[in-house]
């Protein structure tokens, strides 16, 4: 009985340890990620929320209750997005376009790195002393390795339920990676042209072309699976 009581008291204590500041921060993060509001807009709404909470606390409500009521009075994210879209057209457009842009940039980065690999494999082969006839094998291995790393990375994200891609899809990082890869491709090609036969580049190009074809096919398959499975999940069966 004693242990039951102490457990009960502990649970109630935890309930009372409601962290108001943390909850407000969570609300602010949700707003910044899912609405068309600027940082300034969110800071202003936060100050409004604080005023509202302050008044409710004076009435004798708890932190959690005050926050809940104040949040409800301000309105949900959809309502705020509609209201703010009247003045924040540019932000709304920017927020909508950014995920697409990030997707395109991420794809371009991946393709640029893949394009760099044939030249890298020629360099490695020359260093180790592999015959030019086997160059395409080195190139294929490197491309498989790149794909494998990418798949393992995404599988881990999927398994942990962590879909936060902010670091990976950071636009400046992606853009600089593309630029650096392109410069490296150009430099390595000019250096290698002196010592490697042009036909070798042709073979490597063919390998890369084949890889890109397979990769495209892979993305198409994944897209089809995701499209049909999400359609299936959203379907509501109407009862006769």
């Amino acid at each position, binding site marked *: 009985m004693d242990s039951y009581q102490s457990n009960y008291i502990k649970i109630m204590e935890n309930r009372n340890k409601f962290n108001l500041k943390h909850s407000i921060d969570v609300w602010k993060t949700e707003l910044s990620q899912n609405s068309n509001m600027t940082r300034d*807009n969110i800071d*202003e709404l936060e*100050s*409004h929320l604080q005023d509202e909470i302050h008044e409710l606390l004076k009435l004798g409500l708890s932190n959690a209750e005050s926050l809940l009521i104040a949040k409800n009075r301000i*309105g949900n994210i959809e309502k705020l997005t509609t209201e703010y879209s009247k003045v924040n057209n540019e932000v709304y457009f920017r927020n909508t376009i950014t995920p697409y842009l990030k997707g395109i940039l991420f794809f371009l980065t991946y393709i640029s790195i893949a394009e760099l690999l044939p030249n890298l494999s020629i360099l490695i082969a020359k260093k180790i002393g592999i015959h030019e006839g086997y160059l395409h094998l080195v190139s294929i291995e490197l491309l498989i390795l790149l794909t494998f790393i990418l798949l393992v990375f995404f599988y881990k994200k999927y398994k942990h339920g962590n879909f936060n891609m902010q670091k990976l899809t950071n636009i400046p990082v992606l853009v600089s990676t593309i630029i650096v890869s392109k410069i490296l491709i150009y430099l390595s090609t000019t250096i290698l042209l002196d010592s490697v036969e042009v036909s070798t580049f042709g073979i490597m190009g063919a390998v890369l072309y084949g890889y890109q074809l397979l990769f495209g096919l892979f993305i198409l398959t994944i897209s089809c699976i995701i499209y049909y499975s999400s359609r299936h999940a959203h379907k509501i069966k109407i009862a006769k």
Partner: protein
Amino acid sequence: MEKLSKELIGASTIPIILSILSKNESYGYEIIQNVKKISNGKIEYGDGTLYPVLHKLEKKELIASYWKISDSGRKRKYYKISDKGKKELFTEKENWTVINQIISKLWKIETSLI
């Protein structure tokens, strides 16, 4: 207490906000509370709906905003009326007076008929 119609509240929002700010600089929460008090609860702006209106007025340069630390130590975004806003308020006052005169005239006639 019956609230005013949406259309009437919408039409009067700009003159009301400009009038409040012409007396004193203020922030969103205070403006909402003020309007509620002055109108005896007949006009109650939604918490999330006033700010886009304020931002629209700011874009039109009728009001200006700035962040200030209030007496309670919290950061608040204050709004104040601009010269352009004062001119706009003057025009609004004239327009509303005209409407008021028209309606008063019409209703006076009606009552005298009865």
